[in-house]
């Protein structure tokens, strides 16, 4: 580690770092704009200027850019050059400048010693020439990197009296608001959007003083990661549009550490709340998982939490089939009565439970204990259950590593089997985009370039990338960086995978593509295989495991670590083979580990006549089982108790509905696809009579006389019991400190010390200061009192540090730039690679024979649209658009249809599939496997379509093209008409009763 001197201070710094990184890692405040920890340096903003000295005798020094200057042994720098006496002179001059006129201050003889600071002041001053004075109406105000830096360099007085440049802003869709006048041309937006995230529809335009960042013309930003512009932009050019509609300042937001429930990746998030509404979601740094970035589903897909369709009170159905709201206690009594009657009876198979892959591990565990293991179904669909349990079984036995995203980014060859990762695990796809850059880093190393020299490294590599082979049924969003794409039907994807495994093991295939893929993986140091459940095809995940296993078998065990590989090293893959699976929901893996494969919903329904009470935990069964099965269930006379957060079709058939709290109002543990158990905390107290599912179930257990569960009082105890129930869950206790944890003797505040209006916030209801809500279950408090400092990283409720109001304050919480957080790891990995893994079977015979004239249906997932909950957010629903059928251009020509026309789909009856007909809008794909057509999966109108089903297609002559809809952003201003008139169990009683008690029933 080289030693450098900064203002006389001796620093041990990381080899190969630049001066800016070194300073920030050492806690020295050096202003910057264009540099970003994950995007490296381009040296364009000139803000991180420091003075570098030749040697100890050199007193003059020269100005260099911190971000572009590598550290070297004994190098001398100064931020505020001169020390001691010089500093006094500076202060004296500054004070003099304060009292003299603006004119005069320019003429104050500039003192030689403080070149660096003067330079930085001049840079800010020039950046501010065109920056408007609109901080009070700017969404970035109070968390603005530009504000922070302006204060940091001490630029205070504006001398420029001329006109400012103005720009026309663009409509960029429902998520991002554009205000170009605020731009300081740091280029971070374009570098993130284009270089880092692979977007093509945002660019830097024009030159000198009229540079413009935007699209070619108004339109929705296409990237799935556009929301990161909000955090990447150092000022208010790109801001969070949904937040603008219900704006609160950062310092007024109450927030808590949370985990995204949008998919199984488990990104760490910081949701912010005020007035009982979830306002926005910001990234929570986790160096292993999401780093600095989120996908748009994660950032914008939680609007459903504020939805009018949320269930606020428990509801019971009376004899007329109408729902009436009831008090929570009453609901528990009713449920207990139903459940108790059964307990005394002779048949013990009376109460069954269906869990949920989108509910916490604790809630699922409680339900399983409440009804008994043998009466608990995980709540996956039948085929989903098969694939997900298969994945869980592979992960438990394989010797390959299930990598974090950070580890995936080190992969130097990637094979993707059957996934459009950008839509099924978006944040992973962003990581894979970085993985293919390892080739560029290798070239840079050979050329002696530091990897943070971003522009130079990109110029050097051009489009040379590490190999990425994508084998999928349809085009994917990573095709643009793939070295090879292969379009195959699902069963053939599995065959391809197995063939690659065999080729790696030394049996070349007849298929050149297979051999090419095998060679690429075999030559890699850290090969990665990505697959997943999206095709609902176990053979595909098996084949992925076979490839990962073959890579391990191929390697001779070496002690080499991933970092010490020299560029010329051509040894085959060592034990660094990585295997990652994309899973559908936030707790899919956790639930798979908790449940038995054979207990599926169908099996449960098969013995419907023996069931008296069914408890459904946060699971909309109409998305998992067929309509016939639902009908069978609802007509069977079983009493159905459902815990749910949003109204849905299924609830109308339930007898008792318990209003569950969302992830933002409750605590729980989720197991990500990496096998990482992570805790989320309530961001704000539950309103109305919403309660966390675990709370409902605990009450239910107590009321129904369950002796063991009745002993549990606290959430922590459930976690503990859950951890003790299974060896794999043993690390659960260490995921986060328990509720007794105190930081500096106090609970950790969810509100900033600047939170305003504590006494006035409810003044429209009562002028008395409201009693602070207590939080007995977590070490966090709903308060501004306490310290947000030095706590475990898993408990950091927001990022703020003196002088750093923006999200860049994060660096004060990191151990070093890009390093792990100071307060220890976030989350615990439950599954590590096994030393004696069972080898996967490498054989598989496809069963499906496609009949002439029929097409095999394959699913296409959409980041906006395929997820059940996020699509209940207005902005996401707008982006999701209508369901579609995606076909090749050849088929489109044959059917005589173009984009937007209608195609009639006739499902061919088969085992478990009834013949069925529906019409969908057409999308034309550039790449699709032979004999396959794709449908938008997860959309409510395509729930009846199953992957692998055969269908006949014909043009729908009666199809009405969709007319342009009123965009969601306009809809809210036309809010006079209710958005949804669907009756819900409680809407009637809720009208005009935002804060009141539930009516007496």
């Amino acid at each position: 580690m080289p030693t450098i001197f900064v203002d006389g201070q001796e620093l041990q710094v990381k080899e190969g770092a630049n001066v800016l990184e070194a300073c920030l890692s050492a806690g020295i405040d050096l202003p910057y704009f264009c540099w970003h920890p994950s995007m490296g340096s381009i040296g364009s903003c000139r803000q991180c200027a420091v003075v570098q000295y030749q040697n100890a005798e050199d007193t003059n020094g020269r100005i260099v850019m911190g971000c572009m200057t590598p550290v070297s042994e004994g190098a001398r720098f100064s931020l505020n050059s001169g020390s001691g006496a010089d500093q006094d002179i500076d202060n004296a001059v500054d004070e003099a400048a304060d009292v003299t006129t603006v004119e005069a201050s320019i003429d104050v003889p500039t003192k030689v010693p403080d070149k660096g600071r003067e330079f930085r002041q001049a840079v800010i001053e020039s950046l501010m020439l065109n920056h408007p004075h609109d901080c009070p109406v700017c969404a970035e105000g109070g968390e603005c990197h530009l504000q922070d830096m302006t204060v940091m360099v001490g630029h205070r007085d504006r001398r420029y009296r001329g006109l400012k440049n103005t720009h026309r802003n663009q409509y960029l869709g429902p998520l991002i608001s554009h205000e170009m006048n605020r731009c300081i041309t740091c280029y971070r937006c374009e570098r993130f959007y284009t270089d880092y995230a692979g977007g093509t529809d945002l660019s830097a335009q024009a030159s000198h003083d009229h540079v413009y960042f935007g699209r070619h013309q108004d339109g929705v930003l296409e990237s799935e990661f556009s929301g990161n512009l909000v955090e990447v932009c150092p000022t208010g050019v790109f801001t969070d549009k949904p937040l603008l509609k219900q704006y609160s300042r950062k310092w007024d937001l109450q927030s808590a550490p949370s985990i995204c429930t949008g998919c199984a990746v488990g990104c760490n998030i910081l949701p912010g709340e005020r007035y009982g509404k979830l306002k926005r979601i910001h990234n929570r740094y986790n160096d292993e998982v999401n780093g600095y970035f989120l996908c748009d589903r994660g950032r914008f897909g939680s609007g459903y939490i504020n939805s009018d369709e949320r269930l606020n009170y428990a509801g019971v159905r009376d004899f007329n089939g109408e729902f009436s709201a009831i008090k929570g206690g009453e609901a528990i009594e009713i449920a207990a009565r139903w459940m108790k009657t059964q307990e005394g009876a002779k048949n013990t198979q009376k109460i069954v439970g269906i869990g949920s892959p989108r509910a916490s591990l604790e809630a699922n565990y409680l339900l399983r204990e409440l009804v008994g293991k043998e009466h608990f179904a995980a709540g996956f669909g039948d085929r989903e259950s098969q694939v997900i349990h298969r994945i869980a079984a592979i992960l438990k036995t394989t010797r390959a590593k299930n990598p974090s995203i950070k580890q995936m980014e080190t992969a130097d060859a990637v094979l993707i089997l059957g996934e459009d990762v950008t839509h099924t695990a978006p944040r992973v796809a962003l990581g894979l985009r970085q993985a293919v850059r390892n080739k560029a880093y290798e070239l840079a190393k050979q050329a002696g370039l530091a990897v943070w020299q971003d522009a130079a490294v990109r110029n050097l590599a051009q489009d040379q990338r590490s190999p990425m082979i994508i084998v999928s049924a349809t085009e994917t969003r990573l095709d643009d960086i793939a070295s090879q794409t292969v379009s195959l039907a699902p069963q053939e994807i599995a065959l391809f995978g197995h063939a690659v495994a065999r080729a790696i093991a030394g049996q070349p295939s007849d298929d050149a593509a297979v051999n090419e893929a095998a060679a690429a993986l075999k030559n890699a140091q850290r090969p990665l295989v990505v697959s997943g459940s999206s095709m609902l095809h176990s053979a595909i995940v098996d084949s992925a495991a076979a490839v990962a296993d073959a890579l391990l078998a191929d390697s001779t065990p070496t002690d080499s670590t991933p970092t010490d590989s020299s560029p010329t090293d051509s040894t085959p893959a060592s034990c660094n083979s990585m295997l990652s699976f994309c899973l559908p929901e936030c707790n899919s893996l956790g639930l798979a580990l908790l449940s038995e494969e054979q207990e599926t919903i169908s099996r449960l329904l098969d013995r419907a006549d023996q069931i008296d009470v069914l408890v459904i935990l946060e699971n909309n069964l109409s998305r998992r089982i067929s309509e016939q099965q639902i009908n069978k269930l609802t007509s069977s006379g079983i009493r159905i108790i459902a815990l749910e957060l949003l109204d849905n079709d299924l609830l109308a058939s339930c007898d008792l509905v318990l209003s569950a709290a969302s992830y933002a109002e409750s605590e729980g543990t989720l197991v990500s696809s990496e096998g990482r158990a992570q805790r989320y905390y309530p961001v704000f107290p539950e309103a109305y009579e919403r309660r966390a599912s675990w709370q409902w179930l605990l009450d239910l257990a107590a009321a129904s006389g369950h002796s063991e569960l009745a002993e549990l009082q606290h959430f922590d105890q459930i976690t503990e019991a859950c951890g003790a129930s299974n060896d794999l869950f043993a690390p659960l206790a260490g995921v986060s400190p328990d509720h007794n944890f105190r930081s500096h003797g106090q609970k950790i505040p969810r509100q900033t010390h600047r939170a305003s209006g504590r006494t006035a916030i409810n003044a429209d209801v009562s002028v008395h200061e409201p009693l602070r809500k207590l939080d007995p279950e977590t070490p966090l408090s709903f308060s501004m009192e306490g310290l947000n400092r030095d706590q475990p990283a898993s408990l950091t409720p927001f990022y703020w540090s003196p002088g750093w109001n923006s999200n860049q304050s994060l660096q004060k919480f990191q151990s070093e730039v890009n390093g792990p957080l100071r307060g220890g790891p976030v989350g615990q990995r439950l599954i590590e690679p096994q030393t004696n893994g069972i080898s996967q079977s490498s054989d598989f015979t496809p069963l499906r024979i496609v009949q002439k004239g029929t097409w095999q249906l394959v699913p296409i997932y959409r980041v906006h649209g395929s997820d059940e909950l996020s699509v209940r957010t207005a902005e996401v629903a707008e982006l999701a658009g209508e369901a579609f059928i995606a076909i090749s251009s050849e088929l489109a020509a044959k059917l005589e249809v173009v984009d937007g026309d209608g195609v009639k789909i006739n499902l061919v009856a088969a085992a478990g599939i009834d013949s069925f007909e529906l019409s969908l809008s057409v999308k034309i794909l550039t790449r699709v496997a032979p004999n396959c057509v794709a449908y938008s999966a997860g959309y409510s109108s395509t729930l009846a379509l199953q992957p692998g089903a055969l269908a006949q297609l014909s043009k729908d002559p009666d199809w009405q093209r969709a007319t342009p809809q009123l965009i969601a952003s306009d809809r809210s201003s036309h809010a006079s008409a209710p958005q949804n008139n669907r009756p819900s169990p409680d809407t009637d009683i809720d009208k005009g009763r935002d804060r009141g008690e539930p009516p007496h029933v």
Partner: protein
Amino acid sequence: MNDAQMIQTDLGTVLTREEIRQIDTELAHVPYKAGAAIDALKIVQTQRGWVSDESLRAIAKHLEMSAEELDGVATFYNLIYRRPVGEKVILFCDSVSCWICGCDGIKAKISAKLGVDYGETTTDNQYTLLPVPCLGACDRAPVMMVGDDLITHLDEAKIDQLFSDVTVEDSASEGEQ
């Protein structure tokens, strides 16, 4: 409407055969299609006088770039015209040598004569006046280019002579005064 339909319905949005031929010639010299972006823009500008949004999208499609990427290139260069210009563009040097030699007066003369300021086009659509930082002919300052012709040692007489056939319509400069 998809791209194919759009092209069928509006002939202004497709490249002509001649343009495609010239662009393809350039493409033969570059390793990446995007490498011919500037040449393609120049080719289309030569043919059409300027590069409209429609033309730009057609070029982008031909070069397999996004319109945003190509627009980033097109708008970067002052001499790729993204707005319509007159038959001839006057590139008037206002750099230091010409300034010393009194280009300000010449510019005033041109503006009075043609009724246009920088960035404007005469009402008869003959001339567009643009400033340019240097034309590399400082030894013959003040200079300007009119279309493809370099005109040196400018003075008022020369301006009168050059634009003798132009008569200013009052309405042209009305809005600007």
